[in-house]
């Protein structure tokens, strides 16, 4: 079974779509649309981080999951939050630096997703097999 991997993996894709919309609007100079799309993206990302940091990671650690990688994932969430703040500032200032910061965030985000989807989520599905439905329900409630 790969319930957690499927649920959080598809949430990654939802964030990707929101990112692409915000980036495309900003780079074409449509700043109002970019602001709306970016707000949606920021909300999606915040929800995803909360699902992991408040529910998945504690459950994984309680089931004797690997603490090192969980720590690395948390650190990378902090990196992404820093870049999201920079993007918000660039958007406010309608600065051309938006493109470069977005590019940086995309790479940080995708290499992070790759590690989660290929390594951490499959471990979570294995260690938390009996509690998968309950964990997903709690994540959905956020």
């Amino acid at each position, binding site marked *: 079974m790969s319930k957690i991997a499927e649920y959080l993996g598809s949430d990654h894709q939802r964030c*990707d*779509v929101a990112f*692409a919309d915000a*980036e*495309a609007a900003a*780079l074409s100079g449509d700043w109002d649309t970019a602001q709306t799309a970016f707000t949606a993206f920021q909300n999606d990302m915040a929800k995803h981080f909360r699902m992991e940091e408040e529910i998945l990671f504690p459950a994984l650690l309680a089931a004797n*999951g*690997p603490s*090192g*990688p969980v720590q*690395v*994932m948390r650190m990378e969430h902090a*990196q992404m939050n*820093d870049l999201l703040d*920079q993007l918000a500032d660039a958007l406010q200032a309608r600065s051309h*630096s938006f*493109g*470069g*910061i977005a*590019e*940086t965030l*995309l*790479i*940080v985000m*995708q*290499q992070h*997703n*790759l*590690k989660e989807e*290929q*390594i*951490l989520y*499959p*471990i979570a599905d294995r260690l938390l097999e009996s509690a998968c439905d309950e964990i997903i329900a709690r994540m959905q409630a956020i």
Partner: protein
Amino acid sequence: MSTAQLSTEQAPPISVPFRFFALAPLFLTLAALILANGGDFNDIHTPVMLAALHGITLGFMALVMLGAIQQILPVVIGSTMPATRLVAWFSFLPVTLGTLSLCGGLLLGEPRFLNLAAWLLGAGFLTFIVAAMISLQRAAARNTTRTALFLSVLALTGAMALGMLLAHGHASGETLDYGGLAALHMGLGLGGWVMLLIAGVSFQVVPMFQLTPNYPQWMSAGLTQAIFAALLLYVSGYLLKAWPLARIGEGLFWLLSGSFAVVTLRLQHKRRRRVADATLSFFRLGMASLLCAAAFRLTSWWVADSEWLTTLAVLTFVLGFALSVIHGMLYKIVPFLVWFHLFRGGVTKGVPNMKEIIPESWMWRHWWLHLCTLLAVGLAMFWNTAFWLAIFGLAAQGLLLGAGIYTGITVYRRILARQEVAAP
């Protein structure tokens, strides 16, 4: 594997991949200088052409790939190389010196250099192969990329052994089936090591970094194994002198590789992220080149006096497919690593974003230069001036890429030094 061994940390230190990346572009310029001294794209088996091609395949391609693999393993399979720094030095130095020795031995016809090259390259690659196999064995992920990497490293082992045999044979003047062994060496090196590595990594990297749909399940689950099986048919056909078998194996290889290129181009066409991206254009040029290489080689079987088409297929595979993908990968990974290591090193203010580290305009200039170089290589078979344009293009690409990577290293050092001064 036990989850306690799991590593998703983006080790190794920045100096590990960067020593490979910083030196490799100079080999492109060196290869161009070698070509200028009697190269001829119509016959790739002359000593000058062999020296130039090995300058590109070993000095540039292999160095970059050895450095990049150390970087991507933790991300794609959750496992680092053992003894990272030691493995880096004991693969970087012997492969670099071995490549120089091989080029020198071929150009001067000096047996001692050829023998030295065989041992140095053997030692360097063997260090990497053993470390990579340990890392693959420890890997947390059991995905298609892990399988592809395993098969790719296996093919590299075969290519390396055949290369050593050929170098010793040339040095000692021993009677060997040089044509047959060289065909197998090239098949395993380019068709195995290079093709399988690029395909295996693409299954994860293309959908995630270019925001495309996923590769179809039949392709990601079975392509690399099918390509490896086709290569085994090809090798068996050669060893048993069963030529139809060898031809079936090679035909399958090109059809499978061509289908990979078509599917990748279609996925990229459907990408969600529509903004212009030079690294994506490098990747697409690589896929178009792979398709052309397959078409050239398959066509050569139906055309009389078609040796030139086979040569064109090899050149298009190396310079068009492999070089384009590697250039694109470097322009993505170098700025990211500079940014990442500065951030992780605790620099909180003034960290430039990726486009401020190597400007996009720089990458586009290189893309156009690369495209012109490829066109010149194609025309060089018929028009002598194009030969010189191709040499100029290759030399300039080495310098442009080298300067781009050097700029990244300079930015990293400058900002780190500023941080140290600010916080004594």
